[in-house]
């Protein structure tokens, strides 16, 4: 069972969380910066690989920025409160995975938005929450079911299920949420623990 203390757990999440939120706002306020950081298929293919990560910091309207950051900050705060490790690894891996998937979609030339990472974080929290007892566990199960259903529906329809934005100036890419969710699920299972466990037992294959 994961420890759930009454005091916030000191983890390395909080300050970087503020830093990412501030970076997203700065990138939005300085249009020249968003041109430099946005996921740009042609630029990535010509070697500007940082856009794999930084594209997620770019947003296209105040509404887009606000709701995405709200989701990201809440998810980050939950991770910080619960003291889960691996949040930043999750952010980096999900960023790369989403951008990598987008490369397989040649019709998407530009991409921006941190929502795929938010989806990854929510699934990550829900998977980790399965180890909890009582109400938290049931909430985690509900979150998982609803998130999976939502992502599948989004991919099928190509549109957000319950859209917040009214000023959309971009094409929604539901695949980013699905990929983020998958990364969140894998990372929530803490595969590195399995790896550590296995490496501690040199002859582990005998038990298979």
């Amino acid at each position: 069972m994961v420890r759930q203390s009454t005091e916030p757990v000191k983890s390395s999440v909080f300050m970087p969380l503020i830093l990412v939120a501030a970076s997203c706002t700065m990138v939005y306020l300085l249009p020249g910066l968003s041109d430099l950081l946005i996921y740009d298929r042609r630029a990535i293919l010509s070697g500007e690989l940082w856009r794999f990560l930084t594209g997620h910091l770019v947003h296209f309207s105040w509404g887009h920025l606000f709701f995405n950051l709200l989701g990201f900050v809440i998810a980050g705060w939950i991770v910080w409160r619960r003291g889960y490790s691996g949040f930043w690894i999750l952010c980096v891996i999900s960023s790369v995975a989403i951008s990598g998937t987008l490369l397989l979609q040649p019709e998407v030339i530009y991409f921006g938005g941190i929502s795929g990472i938010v989806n990854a974080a929510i699934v990550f929290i829900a998977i980790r929450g399965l180890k909890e007892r009582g109400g938290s566990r049931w909430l985690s199960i509900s979150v998982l079911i609803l998130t999976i259903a939502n992502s599948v529906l989004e991919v099928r329809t190509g549109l957000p299920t319950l859209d917040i934005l009214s000023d959309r100036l971009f094409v929604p890419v539901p695949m980013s949420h699905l990929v983020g969710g998958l990364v969140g699920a894998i990372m929530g299972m803490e595969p590195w623990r399995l790896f550590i466990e296995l490496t501690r037992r040199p002859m582990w294959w005998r038990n298979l």
Partner: protein
Amino acid sequence: MISGKCLSLATRSVIFISVVMLIASCAARSSHNASSVVQYLYPNHKERVETATVPVLSLPLRVGIAFVPDTRYSYSALYSLDEKRKMDLMKSISAEFKHYPYVKSIEIIPSPYLTPEGSFTNLDQIRTMYDVDVMVLLSYDQVQHTDEGLLSVSYWTLVGVYVFKGEKNDTSTLLDAAVYHIPSRKMLFRAPGLSHIKGSATPVNLNEQLRLDSQRGFEEAAANLVTNLKEQLDQFKEKIKESPEEYKIEHKVGYTGGGSVDFLTLSLALAMGGTLLWSGNRRNR
């Protein structure tokens, strides 16, 4: 009565210089060079004027940019905007807008493709030829005035014609961009670019100087136009948000994708956060 013979040498010199200066100061000339979007789009007032409908902007936009044909009332144009200069100006303006995610391409349309008084029929032809939905129509108005200043007195020495810059030039340029959505016949927004240049020249290189001033005038006006166009574009984006009934936005697949948190995801995050906060507070009690 005073006869001519009675005038002293000094008086005659004063009269001579005054006459010369008067003649010199009167020697002013001007030239006007212009084109008009209104004359191009609505050439005949008696004909039915095209009625604009609600534009459906299909993003990303394919944009065309062109100079409308010159008007007939241009007079004594020392420097008319040639095709190469037009192309250079259009390239410099379009380069500033190519990177916008909602702009797929900007096609530079050469002037011969725009017929004088071609109206929307001509725009429809261009739309078919270049596959553009939105057209940036550039027009201009340049007036150049030349006056002779005090230094023009030195021209009587002949050497002064080559040395002293007694010709005062004044070049005012307006470059105007009107952005039209071709299918709906609606003007989306417009922006002006202004420049005012003052210069001087000797009579020998007057025409050359006027040409240079004219070129500089267009370049400065184009730079000013880009700034104003960006402002107008921002205002237009706000206008679309504020009055969605006036402009409809569609998305073509294949440009800018985005990920946005939807209501359900945000609710789930809030529910988890709220539960955590509530359970933490309960334990603290």
